[in-house]
């Protein structure tokens, strides 16, 4: 079943066109990897899908057949979209517990479910913490405050595990992770894998794709997808870099 359809999407930031006619279709059950050189527009794509207030100058995005771009970020989250941030935000003074409890209960409410009791919530937290092997003391702190780079990334996966999204968009969640953490993050993604769910994994490293085996690999260059293939494309990129792709695209 088709979940996401992005058609000829154009996004402009400060008079600069960043996405220049981007196309992608994602069906439930699929894993798509997006690779591409720095500055090619990967995070911009992720942000516009999650609801960041960016200037869309053309194209459309359908999510489960509905216009996604007119929905608020929180509405998108409620409908199952999750963005793992490339640079997670520190929010001093807002505790992880309060933050996650509010988020979880908002999602439950939108599904017509009762809010979790304090003890059920803590139980859920404990369970997911074990799953992503996140240090227990981290969740006693303010959101991302003073977390190391790797801890922030793990925290994104922890949040994903708590919220169980339908469409997870992970923006370089593997960058800055040690080898064990990489395995844990991949494991978190694979645990969620099902016929109803899909993910878009943005990465620079083929290594992650050994753990999360993608159905498709796309290369984003200069605001559009210039090449798509299966997981072998990632191996090829690892070996040859982007020069040949740029040449092909330029030609």
């Amino acid at each position, binding site marked *: 079943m088709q979940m996401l359809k992005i058609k000829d999407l154009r996004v402009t930031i400060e008079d600069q066109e960043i996405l220049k006619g981007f196309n992608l279709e994602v069906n439930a059950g699929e894993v798509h990897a997006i690779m591409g050189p720095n500055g090619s527009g990967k995070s911009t794509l992720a942000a516009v899908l999650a609801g960041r207030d960016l200037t869309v100058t053309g194209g459309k995005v359908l999510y489960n057949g509905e216009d996604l771009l007119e929905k*608020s970020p*929180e509405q998108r*989250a409620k409908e199952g979209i999750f963005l793992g941030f490339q640079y997670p*935000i520190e*929010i001093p003074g807002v505790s992880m517990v309060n933050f996650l409890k509010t988020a979880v209960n*908002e999602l439950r409410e939108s599904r017509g479910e009762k809010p979790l009791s304090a003890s059920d919530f803590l139980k859920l937290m404990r369970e997911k913490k074990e799953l992503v092997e996140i240090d227990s003391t981290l969740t006693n702190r303010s959101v991302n405050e003073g977390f190391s780079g790797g801890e922030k990334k793990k925290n994104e996966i922890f949040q994903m595990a708590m919220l169980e999204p339908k469409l997870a968009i992970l923006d370089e969640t593997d960058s800055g992770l040690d080898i064990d953490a990489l395995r844990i993050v991949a494991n978190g993604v694979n645990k969620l894998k099902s016929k109803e769910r899909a993910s878009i994994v943005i990465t620079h490293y083929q290594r992650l794709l050994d753990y999360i085996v993608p159905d498709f690999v796309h290369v984003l260059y200069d605001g559009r997808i210039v090449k798509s293939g299966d997981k072998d494309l990632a191996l090829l990129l690892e070996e040859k870099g982007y020069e040949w792709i740029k040449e092909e695209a330029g030609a």
Partner: protein
Amino acid sequence: MSTVKQEYDVKKHFLELFRENRSVIDSGSAPLMNKQREGAIEEFERLGIPSQKSEKYRYADINGVFNPNLSKSFGVQKVSFNIHDIFECDIPDLDTNLILLVNGRYFNKEEPLRELQGGIITGSLARASKDMPQIVEKYYNSAASTEDDSLVALNTAFAQDGVFIYLPKDAVLEKPLQIVNIMIHETDLMAQHRNLFIAEENSSAKVVVCDHTLSPNKFLTNGVTEIYAASNSNFDLSKIQNEHNGSAQLSHTFLEQESESTVFTNTVSLHGGFVRNNMFVRLNGEGSENHTLGLYLADKTQYIDNYVKIDHASPGCSSRQLFKGVMDDQASGSFNGTIVARKDAQKTNAYQANNNILLTDDARINSRPQLEIYADDVKCSHGSTTGQLDENAMFYMRSRGIPEREARLLLMYAFAYEVVNQIHVKPLRLRIDDLVNKRLRGELSRCNNCAMNCE
């Protein structure tokens, strides 16, 4: 019908009021206090009501808070109700020694001074002036400076009573003292109370002051509090301003600190139409430490103005000011914090921060740090920020399904928490925490079980 606007001459009004009521004022007070009136009214006459031309009151329209309809009463206060029927502090587990001021006057005037553990004395200031004259004489009206503030002089001329606290050497007050200022009247009313707190060497106490209005009349309070913290003493004052928005409050606190003393003050302004807090701290003794904190949450047309002056008059003292504010709607306000390091105040360590969040384009805050540094070995830092809520944090939360409104609340609450967290009386801290939360949500955040919700 023609309306001729009669110019209300505030100064003239008070001068006449003073002459006409002098004997009633005196008889409701004590000789030690009465002795100071003449000088004070002359000072007031000389200075007049502060105008906005003065640096200090640049943003505050003081003249505007005085209106001819405010009645003043100096005779025996007829309280025709049982105060406990309408007021009861309902903070769970807040076990305090409670003192009530009603309309600026000590509630139970006939009550003798109370002696608490360790020889600690509390009670009416007028009563203490009679029963403990040597002590009151030594301190009364000596920290308060009328030099450049006629409002303090006005208070000295008219104030009849207030709260007296005396902590003898080495006394430690376990239970906090709670002073509840209640305004309740059938007509609009102005009140002026006068407090005197003395902490002798090595003593320690926590004091909580709560301001409430229990009737919907317009009120004006012009109150003065003098605090002396002797060597090695430890004094902690939390003040909760929770009057209705038809009320105006001018509050002047003078604090003198001797060597190695530590004083914390924390002023949380939740409601009140016009609030001006003046805080003067003089660090007189080496190694003294002062923390002056404040939180103000204003909306509608509230005006909240904090003026702080920390005078480092001896070497090796440290001071820290932290004021945070959230301004919504058309609310406006000002923060003016001055740090003075006198010539021989070497090794001064002074810090000041004022952070504001403006929620609307109409909300306004004027933030003015001022430094007067005359010593050369001084560590001094100040910072002031005024801005909106962090966009990135908002988006992060919303992307997790937290609605915009809730995300804003979480951020504002987090912003305020830095100050709330430094209220040292735990049950009070929890209550303030809850009130702040409600306040930010726009829910009624009255503190007491008063049936009146007159905003």
